[in-house]
């Protein structure tokens, strides 16, 4: 069944959320699929929060923060920049398309960029099967007994 992509966007309060507001003030139209959740800083977004969002059935998750160097909290987004690529790898490892997680920087002045990002990301997610199909079709990762043992002994 073809359904509309359900996307959750975690946006930092100071740059990206204001950028999204800016898109509104400029009356730029974009698809309604993204529901925005405001966080103080993109650094607040723990990987678990993103995973929890996928578990709830989101087809895509966006993490938007201030440009590097512009963070309202000076270096909060440095953590995002390091954390999110690792999370993408983890998603890929667990059989989830990494392109379901989108990370970018949007300043308070970039309403147009924000609207473009929403257009692009919604299309990107539309091109993928619904998230639950991905989950159903995943082939379980086989762990060979020897490897398993090695893991246990090293721990």
């Amino acid at each position, binding site marked *: *069944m*073809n*359904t*509309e992509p*359900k996307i*959750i966007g975690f946006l930092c309060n*100071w*740059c990206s*959320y*204001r950028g*999204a*507001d800016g*898109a*509104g*003030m400029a*009356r*730029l*139209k*974009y698809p*309604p699929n993204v*529901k*925005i*959740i*405001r*966080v*103080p*800083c993109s*650094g*607040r*977004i*723990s*990987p*678990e*929060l993103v995973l*929890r*969002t996928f578990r*709830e*059935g*989101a087809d895509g998750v966006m993490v938007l923060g201030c440009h590097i*160097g*512009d*963070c*309202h*909290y*000076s*270096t*909060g987004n440095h*953590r*995002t920049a390091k*954390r999110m690529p690792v999370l993408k790898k983890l998603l890929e490892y667990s059989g989830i398309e990494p392109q379901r997680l989108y990370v970018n920087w949007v*300043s*308070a*002045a*970039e309403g147009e960029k924000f*609207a473009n990002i929403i257009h692009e990301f919604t299309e990107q997610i539309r091109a993928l099967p619904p998230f639950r199909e991905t989950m159903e079709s995943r082939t379980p990762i086989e762990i060979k007994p020897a490897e398993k043992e090695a893991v246990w002994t090293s721990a």
Partner: protein
Amino acid sequence: MKKKNENQAEVQERIGVYVCHCGSNIAGVVDVSEVARWAAQLPGVVVSRDYKFMCSSPGQAMIIKDIQEQGLTRVVVASCSPHLHEGTFRGACERAGLNPYLFEMANIREQDAWVTSDKTEATKKAKALVAAAVGRVAHQQPLEALLVPIDPNVLVVGGGIAGIQAALEIADSGNHVYLVEREPSIGGHMAQFDKTFPTLDCAACILTPKMVSAGNHKNITLLTWSEVEKVDGYVGNFTVTLRKRARFVDESLCTGCGVCQEKCPKKVIDEVFEAGLGYRKAIYRPFPQAVPNYPVIDKNNCIFFEKGTCKACEKFCPTGAIKFDQQDEILTIEVGNIILATGYDLFDARKVSNYGYGRLANVFTSLEFERLSNAAGPTGGNIVLRDGKTVPKSVAIVHCVGSRDKNYNNYCSAICCMQSLKFAHLVKEKTGATVYNFYIDIRTPGKGYDEFYQRLIEEGTLFVRGKVAEITDVAREPGEEGKLIVQVEDTLVGKQRRIPVDMVILSAGLQARADAKEVAQKFGISCSADQWFIEKHPKLDPVATMTDGVFIAGACQGPKDIPASVAQGAAAAARVLSIIGQQQIQIEAATAIVDEETCVGCQQCIASCPYQAIIYLEDKGKAYVQEALCKGCGTCVGTCLPKCISLKHFTDDQLVAEMVGAMRTMKEFELIPMEAAA
């Protein structure tokens, strides 16, 4: 529309939902009564209403009445961006006796009604956003904001007219101001100008008294030749580190007699104050009325610093004020509020190569003309060509150089039309030359501005409507030899014209300071795409920024003329004084907190904190958040693996509930696929 809820068992809270029409801003796209009707069945919702303007007094009164009569324990308003009215509604809750942190907003205007074309989809999205807010609000906890005292001292950065005005207003109120200026003297661009439009009173005559007041004021500490290095702290309690560059002159001994300047053998082209048209010495004060009036040694050009010998200034100084061994001083000051009035840079007219500035001698910039026309300038106020003696018989003034041009800056620089008209008047008055104004549109909105334009027309200034294509010295027709030829399409006549003139003045636009971004980062504020500092609200809060305690005034916020800059300087001062008057201020209550039971003492949070707000308690082996230093970014929360640090008001529970609210609503509406519905 009050309705009893069946799902009461699930949620203990009594939630009120208010959906705002915002006139037709929201209601024109979103079916607001449908959203309110639908929201009434959400878990915990006991009141759900829609109303024309929730932010109005009747709208707020409605919330207050429901809190008191219906015993609401949580409130959700679905309206505009929380950046606009979160404070308004939090205030209403507080007045009704409800902790303001038990309020949540759903942004269905900026992030729904204004960006969604399809009305059905917009209504669905509004429902999802309301469900998210309702889900979240049930998990919110009451918080008490921390009260901190406000340091009454103020830092004003930038000593142009906006900064001077702000500093004087605050100093007059009895509070202390540190006025920091990068150049050797305060005065800014206005000190360089000749006359001011539209009244034509001389800039120096109206500015210098203010400069002197600022220099002498007992409540102003003037720090020129200085720059801000670092800013720490938060509203009410900033610690600012300044670099006071070595002047090589002892300010306590110097009397400002000026003998050193006379005796200094090294002449340098003055690129800053005289816009490259005049000379200064290696030891100099930029202009005779400079405040403070003691000079500064330009280390890069001083013969002593170059060759190790000379010291003419030291020999002749009657008070022994020259100190070649002076070092940069690092000062630390404590202030409660900061006003940035860092001004603008002139657009570099060299970039428009077809206008020939820098290549054709008699093409001048607006700032150069100000100096030419200024009686205290390099020519004593005589308007002459680059050779220093020939009086021009015909002058072209080109508007919008670098402004309203997609190749350079899209915006209108606001002052150039009036400035060009002023130049036209001055040229005509002083030389009697024929003056052409080449304009795209004449923009004269301001008190007495259009009257000035009419006066110029009556004076016989010629106006040609059209953007100049090229300025060249290549003669093609008789009468063009030795002249500058302005090639332009006269759009009123509808034909190409070549107009030979002796002198061209480029009315260059204003642009943000080259280091605006760097400065913005230092003070924790944002820049627009054009690098102007961003105000908190373009109409209703033009001098505040998103960072509490940091205000902006004058042209650093966008192109502005003198009256507007002065008004903003005074406005920023008023805002600061209102904060000082409160004596203490609430700071963010949404800070991080460590759960000591589960903390394993790994100290990852300490490493992640941008403010060193978390410390390690050796005796307990646990992390501890120092509340006054925490700014509530939550980076530590994102970092903590065992989840034992949380950020108040942005807890995992709250964010998950918000996400789940939105997700479940989306899933509810997903049952009908888009294709099937179409």
